[in-house]
């Protein structure tokens, strides 16, 4: 029995390494959940002179979706927003570092899934939200508190499992 112990130790190590392969290192718990959404005031994409701030939608449940025109997964996510989610909840976009100024024509061409999309050209507001990748989506409640952060694209399944139950709870 004793002589098998090293084998067991190595096997246990192997199991941990194998399980580690399936963990997503990008999924880091955000300390912002449960905290008030950081405030900002940014120009609205495609509407010169207009600005948007989270205080404008105080009293509403809304989503803040971080996207960028150079992020192809975000564009796929837009299709999900347009076709599936419709008007379940207002979605606001935060356009991250659109250095090539593609966002406005792109949203005009494809149809914007957002009520409004703001222009965070230097990425400073995204930093305040602890953004690491696009897309990321925050669920913000009536009191302006972040209730959930989702990293990665929203698929129909993710919507059904993570978003819809929470939104139903927050909206009633």
């Amino acid at each position, binding site marked *: 029995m004793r*002589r098998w112990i*090293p*084998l067991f*130790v*190595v096997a246990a*190590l192997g199991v941990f390494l194998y399980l580690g392969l399936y963990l997503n*290192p990008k999924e*880091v*718990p*955000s*300390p*912002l959940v449960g*905290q008030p959404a950081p405030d900002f005031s940014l120009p609205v994409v495609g509407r010169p002179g207009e600005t948007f701030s989270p205080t404008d939608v105080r009293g509403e449940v809304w989503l803040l979706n971080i996207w960028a025109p150079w992020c192809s997964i975000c564009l796929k996510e837009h299709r999900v927003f347009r076709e599936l989610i419709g008007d379940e909840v207002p979605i606001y976009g935060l356009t991250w*570092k659109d250095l090539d100024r593609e966002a406005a024509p792109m949203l005009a061409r494809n149809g914007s899934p957002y009520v409004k999309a703001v222009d965070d050209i*230097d*990425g*400073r507001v995204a*930093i*305040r*939200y*602890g953004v*690491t*990748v696009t897309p990321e989506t925050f669920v913000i409640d009536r009191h302006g508190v972040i209730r959930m952060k989702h990293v990665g694209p929203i698929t129909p399944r993710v919507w059904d499992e993570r978003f819809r139950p929470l939104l139903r709870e927050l909206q009633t």
Partner: protein
Amino acid sequence: MRSGIRIAAALLWLLALPLPLSASQPALPNADDPVLEARLNALAVDLRCVVCQNESLAESRASLALDLREEIREMMRDGLTDEEVVESLVARYGDFVLYRPPVKPLTYALWGGPFVFLLIGIGVAAATLHRRRSMPESESISPEALRQAAWLLQSNDVSPGAQAPETPGGPRPPSSQER
């Protein structure tokens, strides 16, 4: 089995070896304010670049890392202390940005683990040594056995016809006729 243990030990040893670290040079330094830059770099080596997770914020050239360094510069220019800068980053990205996570209930295993393993190792070593010490002494060699050993060693020099001492139960010395 011996060799199996040895291979397992070698594998564990390999896993324990640190990867060669590239020289940690700050990426794209800013020459405007050398004092502030030195402060930034001292701080940034202990901060994780959140997009390229195994690089520090000091080494990374990822665009988010550049933005974050700019953000830190700005906070420092506004007169925030190093602790306040780190706090504000932790508030957004969590303890994950720290390469030296704070000691708290969630990280007890992380900080205490190595010592626990060290104690286990010491325990195993002590138990092994204790068992080895309490093993019975090897039986003392009887005078007959010694005599027979001496005879075997000298048997080459012994002239033909020499009589071997009889030992009951012991191996029979080769007779000189067989040579």
